[in-house]
């Protein structure tokens, strides 16, 4: 993107009908650390890669519980993300207070999108520079939504945002058709594989990713949104690596996570 005379504020259209400030806000999302979300017909999983700002610091928290039945992970200006998380939490609490029922995920995504839209139509505001993956469980099942700084939101089976997310998206595009039948374990495995794609050769460990899951388990009870324990993640990663190291049959296209099939594309 290059500077031009139509990008000074968010209330200016360009002759081609674009609002550049909004697009620049979406750029901010692309610069953030990668985040991946997946959905099956019983569970939804969010994985965020943890990138510390420097060797001395700890990493930014990017996965937050919004209510028992829904959580978010975001990429971009994490401070904006925190503020939006507070807003979402409030919305859920207020809805539950008035209606004694959980706020359905689609309505939550809608409220978030409306809030984002306001910032694209006021001369004294700026758009939120963060993209959110909203994963939740409601009466109609688990859902995954992506909320844009532009105020748009879409429901996804699987999605990846942030830097080098194209590699993860390519991986997911190959696999997504089978997701609905996955068990929670398989879902987490594929989510981790997707994140691995974005790491570009760096080793995946339980300390450089955060995994969260929400869903309905077999007996019908809901598993509330929670961050998965690092020990369990490490165990899953170990089992994934063990499967990779198992004699690789070049003839059979293994379902297992051979991550290096597609050359990670850097866009």
């Amino acid at each position, binding site marked *: 993107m290059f500077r031009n005379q139509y990008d000074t504020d968010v209330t200016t259209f360009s002759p081609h009908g674009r609002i550049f400030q909004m697009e620049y806000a979406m750029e901010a999302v692309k610069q953030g650390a990668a985040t991946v979300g997946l959905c099956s017909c019983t569970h939804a999983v969010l994985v965020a890669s943890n990138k510390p700002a420097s060797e001395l610091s700890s990493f930014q928290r990017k996965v937050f519980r919004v209510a028992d039945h829904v959580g978010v992970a975001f990429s971009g200006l994490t401070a904006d993300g925190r503020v939006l998380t*507070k807003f979402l*939490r409030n919305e859920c609490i207020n809805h*539950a207070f008035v209606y004694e029922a959980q706020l359905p995920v689609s309505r939550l995504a809608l409220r978030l999108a409306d809030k984002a839209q306001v910032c694209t139509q006021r001369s004294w505001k700026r758009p939120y520079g963060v993209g959110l993956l909203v994963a939740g469980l409601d009466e109609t099942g688990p859902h995954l939504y992506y909320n844009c700084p532009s105020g748009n939101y879409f429901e996804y089976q699987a999605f990846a945002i942030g830097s080098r997310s194209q590699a993860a998206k390519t991986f997911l595009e190959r696999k997504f058709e089978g997701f609905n039948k996955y068990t929670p374990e398989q879902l987490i495995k594929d989510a981790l594989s997707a994140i691995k794609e974005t790491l570009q050769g760096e080793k995946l460990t339980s300390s450089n990713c955060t995994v969260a899951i929400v869903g309905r388990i077999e007996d019908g009870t809901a598993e509330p949104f929670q961050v998965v324990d690092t020990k369990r993640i490490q165990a899953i990663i170990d089992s994934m690596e063990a499967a990779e190291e198992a004699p690789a049959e070049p003839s059979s296209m293994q379902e297992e996570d051979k991550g290096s099939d597609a050359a990670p594309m850097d866009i």
Partner: protein
Amino acid sequence: MTISTVPDRTLLAAQDELDSRGAPELLAEPETNKSLPPCSPAHLASSKSAAEIQRFGRERSKQRRRRGGGRVNLGAASEAMARFSPYENNGGTCVAVAGDGYCVVAADTRLSVGYSILTRDHSKICQLADKCILASSGFQGDIKALQKNLAAKELVYEHNHNKKMSCPAMAQLLSNTLYYKRFFAYYAFNVLGGLDSQGKGCVFTYDAVGSYERTGYSAQGTGAKLITPVLDNKLKSPSPLILPARDAVTPLSESEAVDLVKDVFASATERDIYTGDKLEIVVINSSGIHREYIELRKD
């Protein structure tokens, strides 16, 4: 004497007094007219005749009208008409006893209005956090609103601090929430029970506007006056004036405390019309929360 179509004015006036006692500290303000006798129903019942009670009732409603205090003023017509009161006493009793490592919170399950029973199966107990239980008696509408309010605030705390609220923290929050409505109080008489951060039992007792204290045991509600003397006798807690300061926690074991609570409710049920039907006992200890139900007299 006003002609009234309502059968028993005496009883209604006494009931009126019970209602006005609902927000007691609210009406017995420092600016109280000293010439008025203390508005205690027992006092009234014992010493006054029906006529005096009616006159007293009328004087009090005039007093109330002058002072306002959250009540609707209906103007001249209100003299003959029954005044709308935003409060109602749904009766019931709550008790809590704290021990070393456990806390017993109990409440009956009867909901009444006037001389009628609305339901025999209504829980007055609400779990606010893992080690924190609130039992309230009074006006059920306000109690429900108060419980919802506290539950929402607890959720906000959980989001901000990444842990559930401790019992002493909830105690302070409840006090603040009640005082926030100082001038249109929650008609709720609360007892908060649970384990503190050291795992010791704690009981906090409140009035309608948030004044609270940590004690070893407490009773609130319509049967409280019948129960408290018995608890005092059994669980005599050291006076707060004695030095060195001693623990306000009972020496009884958990099962002894539960038995005491059952006995005490059985006695209160005999004499208090608003207490009865079923007793819900909740025990919190280090292994979690355990609930049981005991039948009480249904009359």
